[in-house]
Structure formats: C-alpha cells, structure tokens
C-alpha cells in the first residue's frame, strides 16, 4: 500500500478560465461554453478530440448532463464530482488519473459555479434533513475560529493579529488589481481593510473571499503526447488529497491553529514530486485563502513557514508578489473570487500563466523569470477547521 503518484505521466496542454464575478448576464451554460472553448483553443483541439470529461460543481447542477447538455457532447463519458470547495481540483485529479491509466488519450476537466443567482449574502449550503443539533456556523465564522486560537497559542496580540490578517487581504487585493479576470481589480488600502464592518470575529468584509460566478477548464494528455499540442505544457508532478475523521469539532486535541488534512496532503504531494524544501523550490503557490486566517495557517501547514512564525513572515512580505515565495499572485479567492467548482482549476490557470511566463508584466513573478524556478503548487480545501478535505497539486514546466 502506497501513494505512488503519477509524476510526469500526464500534462496540461490547454486551459481556459472565464472572468470571475457577478455575471448577472451569464448562465451556467454560458460560462461552461466560454471556459471550455478557451481551453480547446489553447490546446489547439476541437471538442470531438476529447475522449472523456470530469466535471465539477458543488451545486450549480447535477450529473454529467449539466456539462454534456451545455456543450452538446457527443456521447462521451462525463463524470460529475463534488468535494465541497475542492470540487474543481477533484475534477482535475480524477481526469489526470484517467489519462495516466491509459484509458483515454485526451481528457477535459471542467468546473463551474453560479453563486450569485440565489440572492443570498455569502455561501449557502445544501440543507439535509437533520436532528437540528449541528452548530450552524456561517463560513466566515467557522474560519474566524482560527484567529483567536492562533493568536493565543503563539502570543500574538489582538492588534498584531488584525494587522497580519489585514496584510494578507491587502496583498491579495494588490495582486488581484493586476488581473483582468479577477472579481475585484482594485488595490484596497490597509485602513479600509482594517476598519471595514465586521462579519465574524476579527474578520471584516475584506477578510472574506469574493462570492462569484465563473468557470475554468483544463485539457490533459499523456506527458509523452504533450508537445503535440503545445511547446510549453505543464507536467503534473503530484496530486494529493486528504479527508480525515473530521474530528476537530469533537476532539479536544484539535487546537484550531492547523489543518491536519492540509499537512497530510502536502506531505504526500512533496513526496510524490520529490520536493524537500518547498519554500525554496516552488516558484509560487495558489492556496485556499477563503478567509485571511486560512491563508495564515496554510503557510505553516504547507511548510512555507515555521510553526508559530507565519504571522511574522506575512508582515515581512515573504509571500508578496515580489517576495521570496509569491502566494496567490492572481489575487486568490480573496480577489479573483470563489465560484466553488471552478476555483481549483482557476488556481491551476495561474500556474499555467506564470510558469509559462504568460502572466501580464505587472504580475509575472520573478521567481520564474529571474529565479528560474519551474514548480507551482495549487492548494484547495473544502469544509472548515478540524473537518475539511484538502487537495494539493504540484505542476512544473519541465520534465524530471
């Protein structure tokens, strides 16, 4: 029994990503068509060239028919997957395995979410019949639990903690301001972030990711075929996923300063990709910054900072666009927006642009252009502290 990985067996040869935002004039079908067509063009293929599809959405449709109906797919396998906020990544992961298995030559992973049609504030989950005893926390409240626990454990006072969270939001807005596909394309001053109305705990509105509509897609082929489609494929180095006992809410040993699922999936990914010093080896990481404290904790769980020190690294600018390890150079969930089923693929889209040096000049990271690093990470989680699923991928622009 082992997690062997499929390093360098498959490659991404085309990607598409719609702008994310409040698409009052676009349907789920519209966004699926746009993301898919862009991915086909990017790979230089037609829809008929695709042998199978993995389709991710949390709640904007059910079954493979949501995709096949929109795209008029000609009797091919379409698998619908759902894994909460990691849904887009899960579609990608399974699509990669399908190619690696040899079952198909060309596979598409497509994700979509339409959140803005329901007229609600924030995310709303599906309601299952229950005994009414589960704590009904909103998403910002769930993740805000991290902040006081982290601050308490590592001796960060409330004002410093707010500064750290503000710095993360400020950085992601700065990056998003350089991204024409992002939901929020404006820099936001730290005073504005700091003084925004509170939503949950210490979190103001700028500490929360954008609720948005969007779609993204990737075309995956065997690595040996990749150069038939593009001169600059991205090779899949690692695909890791972890779901745990979800015992944080019932186990006093869980202290709300870490995601065990993230540590586990990161360790697996690093092993698959032979990465030993992620902070030095990765050119960038797109991480699941659903709320600012999440990004803070992820820096430690992903091994980018020592335990208890990520807050200092954040303040020092380590993870800025021009920092030692740029985190969320596209603005992340914070600025790019978070259409659930699309987000994991959107993260890969930024690796696609950055590692191929196709990002706009004002956002192209120097770890690639000057540092010569070739690896990018996407990290995507679903659920909440103590009870989540976590996905980590590592992709690279070179074989080996």
């Amino acid at each position, binding site marked *: 029994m082992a997690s062997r990985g499929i390093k360098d067996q498959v490659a991404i040869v085309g990607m598409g990503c719609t702008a994310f935002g409040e698409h009052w004039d676009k349907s789920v079908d519209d966004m699926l068509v746009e993301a898919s067509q862009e991915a086909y063009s990017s790979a230089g293929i037609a829809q008929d060239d695709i042998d199978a599809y993995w389709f991710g959405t949390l709640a904007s449709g059910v079954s493979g028919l949501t995709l096949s109906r929109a795209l008029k797919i000609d009797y091919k396998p379409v698998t619908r997957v759902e894994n909460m906020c990691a849904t887009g990544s899960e579609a990608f992961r399974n699509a990669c395995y399908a190619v690696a298995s040899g079952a198909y030559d060309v596979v598409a992973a497509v994700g979509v979410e339409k959140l803005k049609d329901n*007229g*609600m*504030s*924030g995310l*709303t989950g599906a*309601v299952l*019949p*229950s*005994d*009414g*005893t589960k*704590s*009904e*926390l*909103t998403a*910002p*409240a769930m993740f*805000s*639990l991290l*902040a*006081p*626990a982290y601050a*308490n454990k590592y001796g960060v006072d409330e004002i410093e903690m707010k500064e750290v969270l503000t710095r993360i939001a400020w950085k992601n807005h700065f990056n998003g301001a350089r991204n024409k596909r992002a939901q929020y394309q404006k820099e936001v001053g730290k005073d504005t972030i700091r003084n925004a109305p*509170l*939503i*949950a*705990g210490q979190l103001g509105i700028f500490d929360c990711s954008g609720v948005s509509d969007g779609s993204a897609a990737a075309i995956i082929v065997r690595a040996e075929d990749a150069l038939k489609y593009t001169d600059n494929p991205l090779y899949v180095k690692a695909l890791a996923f972890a779901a745990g*006992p979800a*015992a944080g*809410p*019932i*186990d*006093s040993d*869980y*202290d*709300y300063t870490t995601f065990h699922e993230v540590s586990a999936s990161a360790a697996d990914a690093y092993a698959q990709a032979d990465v030993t010093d992620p902070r030095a080896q990765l050119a960038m990481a797109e991480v699941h910054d659903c709320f600012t404290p999440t990004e803070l904790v992820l820096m430690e769980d992903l091994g980018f900072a020592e335990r208890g020190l990520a807050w200092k690294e954040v303040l020092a600018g380590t993870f800025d666009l021009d920092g030692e390890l740029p985190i969320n150079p596209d603005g992340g969930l914070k600025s790019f927006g978070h259409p659930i089923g699309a987000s994991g693929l959107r993260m890969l889209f930024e690796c696609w642009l950055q590692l191929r040096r196709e990002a706009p000049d004002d956002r192209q990271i120097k770890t690639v252009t000057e540092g010569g690093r070739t690896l990018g990470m996407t990290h995507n989680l679903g659920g909440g502290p103590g009870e989540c699923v976590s996905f980590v991928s590592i992709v690279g622009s070179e074989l080996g």
Partner: protein
Amino acid sequence: MRGIIGYGAYVPHHRLKRSAISAALGYGGGKGTRAVAGHDEDATSMAVEASRSLLASLDGSAPTPSSVLFASATPPYLDKTNANVIHAALDLPRAVFAGDVGGSPRSVNAALRGALEGSRPSLIVASDVRTGRPGSADESALGDAAAAWLIGSEQDAPVIAEWLGGASVTAEFLDRWRLPEWNYSRVWEERFGEHAYLPLVAEAAAAAFQQCSLDPADVDIAVVTGLHARAVRGAARAAGVDSTKIADGLTATVGNTGSSHAGLILASVLDDADPGLTIMVIHLADGCDVGFLRTTDAISEYSNANPVAAQISSGNDELSYNAFLTWRGFLDREPPRRPDPTPPAAPPSFRNEDWKYAFIGSRDRGSGAIHLPPQRVSVKGGAVDDMERVPMANVPGTIATFTIDRLAYSLAPPTIAVVIDFDGGGRFNCQLTDARPDQAAIGLRVQMTFRRMLTADGVHNYFWKAKPLSP
C-alpha cells in the same frame, strides 16, 4: 406525611426596565424590572431549566417520579405534549407518564392537587412566557419564569414541606381571556374582577382554615398570587391574614409570572425557611385555591442549587425594548439575506433523542474518549461499537476558542459561537447564550442550558447551548 420533597425555580437572565417602555411609547411602564425569557427560550425550555435546578438540589437522591406534568398558559405546542420534551431533556425512563395541563394559570393547581392527593412521587413544572400588547399593564407587570415541585411522601425522600390541606371555590365570571391565536390577553374592567374575586377568597380561606384546623394567627407567611393585581392586593385581608405576613411577590424585579408565580414565590420563601414555618398559599384564578404547607426539620438539609435571590440579582437589565418586542413577536424585523431557517426533521430527532434532548454523548470504554454527539467509531484508536452512554448536560466546560458570527440568522444578533472543552473530556461547538459578545473569551467557564434554537415551519428546535457558569 406527604408534601414537597424538592423544588426549583428558573428566572431567565434578561430583565426589561419598565422605564424602557415609557421611554419608547410615552406611557406604560413603571418602576423596576420584569424578567424576560430569552429569544431562545419558551415555557418548555424554562420548565426544563427549573426541573434541572430541582434535580441538582437533590443531588442525585431524587426518586424517579411516576409522572411529569407541565402546567402552562403559554404552551409552545398544542396537540403535541410539551411535557415530553421535559421528560426527554431530563432523561426520564419511558415508564414515566408525561402530560400537559394548560389553558389557564389555574391549571397548575389541577396538577398539584392530583399529586398531593396521590401516593407516588410526581414532578410538577409550571412555566409561562407572559406579555401583553405594547403599552399594556400586562406587558409591564407580568414576567417570565418557571417553577418545579417534586411532590412525594416520606418513604420516597425527606419531605421538606408537609401538605396540610386546603380548599377551593369556583365561580364562572369573565375577568381575563385569550384566544389560542392571540399573543396577549384581554381583561374586563378591574373593579368588576375585584368584586367577583374577594368573596371567593374569603370563602376558600375560611373553608381551608376549618379543614386544617388552623386560624389566621397560625399563618407565618402567606404566598398570594393571581393575575388580577387589584384583587390580589386585597386578598390577604379578605382571608383574614395580617398584611405583614404576605411574602414578597417579586413584582419589582421579576413580575407576575402567571402559572409559575406561586411556585416562584414559594421557592423564594423556602430558600430561607426554618423548620416549623406554616405557609398559606392563596391563588386567585377563575376562583380561589387555598392551601397550607408546614416546613419540616428536613428543610434544614435542603439547599437550593440556584436560589431565587441569586437568580434575580444576576439578571441583566440591559435589554432594549426593541429587542423585547422583537423576541415576543410584536416587531417583525428585516431578516439577513440568508436562507430561511429549516426545522429539524422528525426521524433523525427521534433516532437521536438521547443526544438532542438529554445531551448524552458516548464514551469509548477503551480509550475513555468522550464523543459529542455519540459516535460508533472512536476518535481515539478507532474502536468500533465499544461505547457507553455519558450524560454531559451537567458537566461544566471551558471555552477553547470562539467567534462572533454577525452573518448568521438570529433574533438577537450577533451570535456567539464557542468551542467548549468539558471538564473530564469531550469537545463541543455550540452557541453561547445569556452573554454579551465581549464576555466571550478563551478560558471562560461555561455550563449547558436547554434552549429553543429556532422555530421553522411551526417546529420548535430544542437543543443545548452554553452559558457563562454561575458563580
């Protein structure tokens, strides 16, 4: 000897300053405060709290009652027995009968008469959430509280107040009435009620004195109650009892709590009572019920876990009139742009009765790990189906982390969400109630309290929340 073997009372945390009413409306109100059931409380949840307090006072030595009877003029459900919720929350055996007596505040006396004249132990719980239309005398003068009695005989447990007997008179007249769909009562002109009531008091008192071979001079203290304030003021005199003997009706702080008022005053009296005290109870409600109790030597050994005076003094009078009106349904406010709350489903609530109502978790026999809610597979070591029941409702805990949720739907935003680690093990996430957001802190000591989480589609969702631990 038969009588009271245990008692308890519950006064909710919130107080409305009566001056807040006049400040808002330009009239109404008055001096002092009235007790207000929280937005997450109702007559049933308060009855659970009063019963828990009673059982805590008996500290595990309470005999299992043969019945639990819930008396309320403001029952949360009709057609469905509210007492079953109390029965479930107290984790009583299935063989214990549960029933409601309701309609008028006099109904509590029906339950008490049956219990006192019976032979087996019986738990009687009275609870009302009372108000009136904005600006009315009822709104200001009434209050919310619950009271519980465990009635039994000396072979069940020590009797702390012996039932000496009593008498009742009944007469049909229109004084106070309410249709089931109304959230306020109507009353006739008060001088008529006084005219109707006082002769009934005199008649009932005379009969009771005669039946028990007592006379007014034997009365050490008189508990006098009824929702007709003017008649109650004249009742002691009509009964021939010196006005100096009248027990404090707690109207300055709590208000008249209807069905539970006699029990609340009696609890307050018993909290400080010495042996040998003769107590007369006069209850004006569609007639008049008079009864006599005498405290026994056993009262010296009885310690109320939550004395009435302490509950009164720990109240919080910061409640705004706007919030009060909102909680009682008189002010329909714009909800957040969030999905409507959903009711609990019947089958999972049925399957999980022990957990949902009695807060019973499971303990892994091997590792000792406590699971809330109960699990089949242990979080420590993964043992399968090696669990035992572990009641957690009375176990205090400490806040591990917390947050203030300003987005969640609540009648009293913002919601305080806490992660609790229980003394001796067990972790649970829930809401913190009866607390201000600035009270939430890592390390705060908390206890569990039975609440109505929400009502959706006419279904009340009862479950447990944390509240700051009483000193």
